């Protein structure tokens, strides 16, 4: 069938600069560029281009420009180009539209409507270059009070503490499974987490055996509805276990790793046959209610000898705050909430773009709900989905999160350009693919260095902003909405965020 969709991108090649080295041809897994030996020039098929910019960045002569196609349908406020083309694609295929990465629609980004405070006169701002600035954070349940006994001035702690994760900076790598992302990308995240005093999350695809000893100490292992790659050693080599109930990019549905991406190594790690589709059901089929979840939480606590905090990850949806308090009462030590803009390797476009609520509102309402019920101490909150920079992190914490997960941001640090074609398995950047030719492009040493540089840079910036507010320990900013003001927000939005308007 002739496709009526015109190319999304226009490729402009400067023939003066092009040296016919065929680098672009080798770089593009989508087969955009081909060499015509007769004419001795490279030809580009714009229909295949996904706009990932790999050829642009790797062209030694800087001869290629890829930009959005200037072609247009007659402008129509209701029928945007995207709506028209999506419809055409479905008319041509009869299928569900797939996509990758996070929601790219212009929902209000609250981070950009919140401003931070700074000290002036009445309390001194603190210079992080000269004074200690503490970002260390503990994730897990804390008791409401601590009992001690004193004998001859010797203080003993009587209260037994639940296990907690200690992070040197409140930024963790979000769940991205081996299988969805390449081994090198997975290992880069693990390496960077260990180096930066934080944690990476294995996602639902298991943890390769040879990585367990070295990287278990900075791993959070996930138990998802597909139960891939789970054995006692997997659970016990890590520092925390996370039950994945939902994901911000696709609340309410499961995952699908196509058989083509299930290589021998992925198959071994996931404990499934090679080449078989790895399908995670939409719900956990042993969790149809909150008491079932509680049983799984305690089964995992038993399996790990009560030595590891158990996290439960849910997508932020309409009544999630009430559900989350139930999850805390069901025994979870950490609640991970994933917002509307959370990323994914593959999701139906209709779901990614329309289900869930923005993370900023979710953090605030969850924190408030837990405080109102006097159980805020009993869990930590990790916020995920749409964290783009260090000010987003600090605002998330002031709204009540204990720490954040970054997914897309970490991938971008490794080279991702958010082309949204993760589900094709042809990632030219070697991140979201199992093709050895492509994944070999990602050098673990370099990628992990880029990741730990990012953590270092953000931590410095957080320290700088914190010092400006006259605060030298991150725990004094947690839930401290006094340091936030809203700009350009409606009354109800300020209410949900629990912040004053600027100037109030």
């Amino acid at each position, binding site marked *: 069938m002739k496709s009526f969709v015109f190319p999304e991108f226009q490729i402009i090649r400067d023939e003066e600069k092009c040296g016919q080295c065929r680098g672009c041809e080798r770089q593009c897994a989508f087969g955009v560029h081909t060499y015509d030996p007769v004419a001795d020039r490279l030809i580009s098929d714009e229909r295949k281009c996904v706009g990932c910019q790999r050829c642009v960045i790797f062209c030694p002569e800087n001869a290629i420009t890829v930009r959005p196609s200037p072609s247009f349908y007659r402008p129509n406020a209701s029928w945007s180009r995207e709506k028209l083309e999506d419809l055409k694609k479905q008319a041509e295929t009869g299928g569900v539209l797939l996509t990758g990465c996070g929601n790219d629609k212009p929902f209000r980004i609250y981070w950009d409507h919140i401003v931070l405070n700074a000290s002036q006169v009445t309390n001194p701002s603190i210079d992080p270059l000269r004074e*200690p600035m503490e970002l260390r954070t503990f994730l897990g349940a804390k008791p409401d*009070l601590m009992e001690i006994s004193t004998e001859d001035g010797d203080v003993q702690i009587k209260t037994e503490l639940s296990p907690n994760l200690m992070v040197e900076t409140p930024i963790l790598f979000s769940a991205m499974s081996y299988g969805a992302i390449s081994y090198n990308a997975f290992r880069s995240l693990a390496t960077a987490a260990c180096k930066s005093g934080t944690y990476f999350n294995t996602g639902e695809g298991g943890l390769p055996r040879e990585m367990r000893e070295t990287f278990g100490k900075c791993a959070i292992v996930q138990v998802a509805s597909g139960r891939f790659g789970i054995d006692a050693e997997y659970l016990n080599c890590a520092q925390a276990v996370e039950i994945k109930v939902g994901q911000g990019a696709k609340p309410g549905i499961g995952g699908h790793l196509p058989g083509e991406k299930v290589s021998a190594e992925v198959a071994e790690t996931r404990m499934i046959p090679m080449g078989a589709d790895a399908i995670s059901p939409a719900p956990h089929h042993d969790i149809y209610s909150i008491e079932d979840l509680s049983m799984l939480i305690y089964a995992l606590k038993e399996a790990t000898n009560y030595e590891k905090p158990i996290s439960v990850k849910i997508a932020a949806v309409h009544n999630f705050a009430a559900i989350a308090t139930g999850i805390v009462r069901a025994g979870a030590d950490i609640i991970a909430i994933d917002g509307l803009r959370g990323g994914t390797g593959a999701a139906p476009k209709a779901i990614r773009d329309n289900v869930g609520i923005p993370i900023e509102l979710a953090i605030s309402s969850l924190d408030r709900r837990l405080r109102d019920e006097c159980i805020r101490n009993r869990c930590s909150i990790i916020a995920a989905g749409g964290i783009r920079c260090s000010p987003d992190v600090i605002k998330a914490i002031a709204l009540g999160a204990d720490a954040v997960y970054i997914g897309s941001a970490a991938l971008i640090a490794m080279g991702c350009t958010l082309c949204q074609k993760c589900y094709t398995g042809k990632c030219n950047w070697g991140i979201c693919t199992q093709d050895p030719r492509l994944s070999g492009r990602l050098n673990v040493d370099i990628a992990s260095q880029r990741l730990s540089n990012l953590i270092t840079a953000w931590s410095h910036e957080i320290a700088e902003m914190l010092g400006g507010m006259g605060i030298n320990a991150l725990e004094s900013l*947690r*839930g*401290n909405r*006094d340091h936030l003001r809203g700009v350009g927000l409606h009354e109800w939005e300020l209410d949900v965020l629990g912040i004053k308007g600027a100037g109030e």
Partner: protein
Amino acid sequence: MGFKIIMPRIRRELYNKEICACSIFGAMNRDGERFTGASVMKAIANMRVRGNGLGGGFAAYGIYPEYKDYYAFHLMFTGKGPHAKFFAKKELDAFLSQYFDIVYDEEIPHGDEATVSDPPLVWRYFALPKKQDRDTMLTDEDYIVDKVMWVNAKIENAYVFSSGKNMGCFKGVGYPEEIGEYFMLDKLYKAHTWTAHGRFPTNTQAWWGGAHPFSLLDTTIVHNGEVSSYGTNRWYLEMYGYACNLQTDTEVIAYAVDLLMRRQKLPIEIVAKILAPPIWNAIDQMNEKEKKLLTTLRMVYGPLLMNGPFAVIIGQTGKMIGLTDRIRLRPITAATNGEMFYLSSEEAAIRLISPQLDRVWTPNGGEPVVGELNNMRKVLQ
């Protein structure tokens, strides 16, 4: 832990935090000999430039030996004109007589009203709890806290200045020495421990309830500083039933001290490590046992860390404690002379009333200085 207060929680947290700088002073006779407020008034007056006349106050311990077994409530009634004040008092009287047996009450004697600005009606009651129904489960102290929170939150124009036994707070709008003279602290009262405060709020909206000391039961706080962690401290304390509605960051310190010392029964040395903990770099280098203790404290009580600059004098029956923030951004000087123990923002104020001192020192940031009565029995009898 048996009580819970239902608080009106505004969804948008539109509280106003009052910002101020201050002078603080404390004097204690560790032998329990009682002395008038004259010297303390003289000392705090010496630090006049640290205040701006918009708030001053005193806490005095041991002033009511004849009523030492009764809770002494100092109440303030405000409002435009005598009628409003009288109406607030009427409402409070009805509340008090329902929940307490009042053995004696009177207006707190004062000087010429023209010497201070807009004075409220200030009254004192000596009373014992009259617990009924579910309240019988509460300890006396929890009961008092419950009722004090109720009065401050619910009864319009009535505020509790202090609510401990054999102690009281006197405070108002003016320079501290003016407030001292207004209440005739140099003539009418003798205490074994005095703390005092002179205030420099940055906003002009001054009211008598906003002056220091802040108190709950017999714990009083005079505070110089600004609590940058106020929002965090506040939500944590609200979970334990403390309604923070006095529009000042100092009350979170008072409530934190009440929660940790009275309800959770932690000693001051531990409490100091919660309010002003050592930095992680220092903790990481301690021996295993200390490391475990301090790590656990920071994990459990992180939301009670008082961040930002502060110096406080905490008064309790038989104790006077000085503490600064962990990086000592506000001054405090400690001194002893025989049985006298002093804490002050400035050494000069101590020298003014006691030129000869045995020892003068500047405590480290986060390190509490504790003065205790040598013989509690002498005070209690």
